[in-house]
């Protein structure tokens, strides 16, 4: 008997990171008091007309470029007509005929096998207003109405929950790193709708849309649930109807919202209030040039610099750290040490005191000094922990901070004196070593370190100790 094959297509709405809205200059703010970030355009007042947010066009173009799309260099907007209370004009301004980007792709990797998920198109549109429901009433907040969005539509190229999640993780990373959107699913600035169907043949099965999924992992849960649900219905001999369902995170299941009417009749037509928009080659080039480095590229650089895969993953997950680290690429700095510091003690400090990295007293210069000190063995990580708070809080150079902590580099003579003293007091260990007990040197090392109070470079100590023992 044939296996069921699952087919998944995904539509993602991502809010663009702009100050003002797409077609009006009211604030694009999240979390403000209801209906305080609006103007007559957002409320769909009679007589109002749209204008175009320059930054939104730039961010949408960035997104189209990182998704490897072909760009519609002369584009226009269209009206999508449908009556719904969250849609203030009862038409939404979107791009139907000339989406800003078409025919792109996102590459995902599962078990080291790469796969391209094709992007059908990416288009610009305005967000709807937010609604809350209680009993027999719904309440509308127009603060979100008109927030710029891109909608990214894939081909039905995914075949498992795992692939769908990998696609969403990758897409999120792309948009986040291109500074297109902050992609906060929990705040609704990134929203995913999945179209899931199952079939035993080459023909696609009946498409079921699942909306309202609040996290990427829940996308996986929702798809697996749908797959099982649809197969079980088909096995019972039932016929599926095209419908829209919503994910319920309390029961980890999907619930019917509505059965689709015969073909949505959105009565699209070109928006006459907005003349064509031209994206010149020079403009596209300029926008491409200003896209921050992709996560992919960062990953490659970090790995080439010897940072472990585990740490690379952690860095990529934290954009602030990655951006900070990137300042020191090509500066002949030990990036392994630098990343360890950032992920370890510095992150711990930031989390403990809840202040952002850029608000601390840590300058690029100080960071370079510390990494260099650790790299050359001038200080060890124990000393670094001791001075950490001062480094993060005092506007003093590292040298001065070390001095304040009584940390200074020992002279050759001082070190030699200490080594000699330790060797004299530990004759047993010296003879053990000479008999071939390698471990004895570790003990001696520890004693010397203790005496130097960490003020000597361990590499230098080892060097000197070994030569003395050979005497």
């Amino acid at each position: 008997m044939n296996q069921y094959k699952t087919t998944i297509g995904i539509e993602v709405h991502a809010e663009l990171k702009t100050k003002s809205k797409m077609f009006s200059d009211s604030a694009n703010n999240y979390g403000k008091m209801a209906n305080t970030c609006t103007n007559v355009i957002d409320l769909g007042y009679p007589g109002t007309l749209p204008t175009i947010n320059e930054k939104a066009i730039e961010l949408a173009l960035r997104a189209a470029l990182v998704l490897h799309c072909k760009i519609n260099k002369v584009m226009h907007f269209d009206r999508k007509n449908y009556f719904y209370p969250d849609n203030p004009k009862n038409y939404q301004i979107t791009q139907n005929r000339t989406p800003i980007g078409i025919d792109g792709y996102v590459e995902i990797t599962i078990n080291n096998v790469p796969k391209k998920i094709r992007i059908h198109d990416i288009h610009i549109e305005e967000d709807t207003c937010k609604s809350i429901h209680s009993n027999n009433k719904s309440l509308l907040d127009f603060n979100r109405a008109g927030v710029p969005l891109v909608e990214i539509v894939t081909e039905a190229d995914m075949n498992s929950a795992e692939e769908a999640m990998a696609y969403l993780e990758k897409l999120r990373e792309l948009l986040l790193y291109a500074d297109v959107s902050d992609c906060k699913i929990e705040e609704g600035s990134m929203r995913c709708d999945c179209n899931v169907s199952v079939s035993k043949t080459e023909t696609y099965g009946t498409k079921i849309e699942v909306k309202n999924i609040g996290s990427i992992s829940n996308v996986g849960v929702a798809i697996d649930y749908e797959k099982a649900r649809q197969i079980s219905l088909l096995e019972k001999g039932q016929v599926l109807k095209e419908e829209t369902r919503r994910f319920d995170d309390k029961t980890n299941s999907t619930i019917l919202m509505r059965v689709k009417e015969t073909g949505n009749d959105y009565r699209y037509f070109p928006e006459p209030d907005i003349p064509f928009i031209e994206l010149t080659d020079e403009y596209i080039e300029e926008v491409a040039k200003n896209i921050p480095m992709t996560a992919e590229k960062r990953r490659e650089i970090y790995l080439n610099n010897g940072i472990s895969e585990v740490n690379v993953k952690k860095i990529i997950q934290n954009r602030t750290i990655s951006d900070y680290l990137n300042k020191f690429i090509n500066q002949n700095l030990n990036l392994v040490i630098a990343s360890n510091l950032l992920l370890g003690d510095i992150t711990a400090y930031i989390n403990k005191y809840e202040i952002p990295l850029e608000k601390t007293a840590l300058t690029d210069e100080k960071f370079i000094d510390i990494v260099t000190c650790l790299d050359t063995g001038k200080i060890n990580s124990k000393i670094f922990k001791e001075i950490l708070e001062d480094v993060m809080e005092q506007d003093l150079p590292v040298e001065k901070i070390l001095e304040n902590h009584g940390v200074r580099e020992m002279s050759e003579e001082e070190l030699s004196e200490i080594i000699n003293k330790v060797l004299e007091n530990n004759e047993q260990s010296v003879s053990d070593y000479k008999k071939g007990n390698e471990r004895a040197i570790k003990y001696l090392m520890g004693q010397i370190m203790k005496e130097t109070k960490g003020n000597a470079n361990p590499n230098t100590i080892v060097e000197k100790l070994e030569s003395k023992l050979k005497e």
Partner: protein
Amino acid sequence: MSKYLNLELKEINKLLKERKIKPLDLVEEAFDNIEKNKDLNAFITLNKDQAIKMAKDLENKEVDNLFFAIPIAIKDNICTKDLRTTCASKMLENFIPVYDATVIEKIKQHNMIIIGKTNMDEFAMGSTSRTSYFGPPKNPWDENKIAGGSSGGSASCISARLVPLALGTDTGGSIRQPASYCGLVGMKPTYGRISRYGLIAFGSSLDQIGPMTRNVYENAALLNILCGKDEKDLTSTRREKEDFTSLIGEDIKGMNIAIPKYFVTDIVEKEILEKFNNTVNLLKENGCNVEYIDIDYIENAVTLYQIIAMGEASSNLARFDGIRYGYSYENPKNLEELYSKTRQIGFGDEVKRRIMVGSLILSGENAKTYYDKALRIRDDIRKSFLKAFEKYDLIIGPTTTTVAYNLTDNLDDPSKTFLDDILVIPVNMAGLPGLNIPIGFNKDKLPIGLHIIGNEFDEKTIYKLASYIEKTLNLNLNPKGGE
């Protein structure tokens, strides 16, 4: 009551400057005129308290421009902050805009005094102003006749000399056709010349605001003030500043003028054709070169207009749903009932017909067979006009096929209202400027108008010819003979 408002603006301006009259004199006279001519039903809302207050405020201000303290009437589809704006619809019967249209800002900047909001067809849909929720305005030349539409109230109040200035809007002839029926000067400027921000949209790619006045000079001078790029309207055009009055009074000798053959066929009443031909002869005698031409698809313009205007209107008027403003059906059972009953009760018949057909035009495959096709042919019409303007300075024709008809005529035929605008609609299709200038009267003393069409952004040349005709014919355009 004194009669200053019948003077030319230049004379009123002089009197104001010399402090021989006060702004309040003008405002009081305007309201007195309106009161005495209540039967015309030209206004939906009067701005009496504010106008008087403003007139008093202006008393001590410097008379800084020609339009200072001049009463102006505004068509009721242009948003005026804190002044009711109804679109002549039950839907907006109690609607108070919270912002001013850009043209209103300009009018206020020039210290004009808004007297009131004029009657019109509901949402500007109609050619007679009879679709108004507030009853039709009447034609001052014969109160049994229509004033035309949709800017019928504006035409009526200028014609009756209630106020000297009015704004109208023109989607498919709605300034020029009532101007013709009522015997005044009405200009629909080039699409994009005047900001549409604050004009309640009917057909977005067709709508344009324009001045309606007693004479050509004042029309051109008012356009000087209304026009200009507006950051709030992407379709408004950035142009070098120009003076539309600059060619007024110049000799018309050597002008090349074209007449589309379609404009002088038997669709036009005989009396109108006669007056038109007399004017053509006058132009020829004075050195104009007049030729007859063809414009592609001009005979299809009404069909294209119906498709585009109804299609766009169905979308533009979707926002009237009883949720954020306007009439709202009380205690609806559910959302569907809120929508469908609000719109059933809030809209009149003409509007409902057009919205329904407009929705059908954009529905499914129809969007291609009707709307897209109309846009394609529309492009051809425009190109054909522009080609003609490579050779000719102006294109002329009669403005209307008939004179103003009885208020009780043609009420049953939903198509008739479109045919009233058959000669003016092609101009909206092409986005060109067009103006009505009165050229005489029929045997019943009803006005007949000439339509002058210019190349895009060449309103100046239109005014040049219009002023020549005005001066040469020297008609008495005051329905009461100018007592």
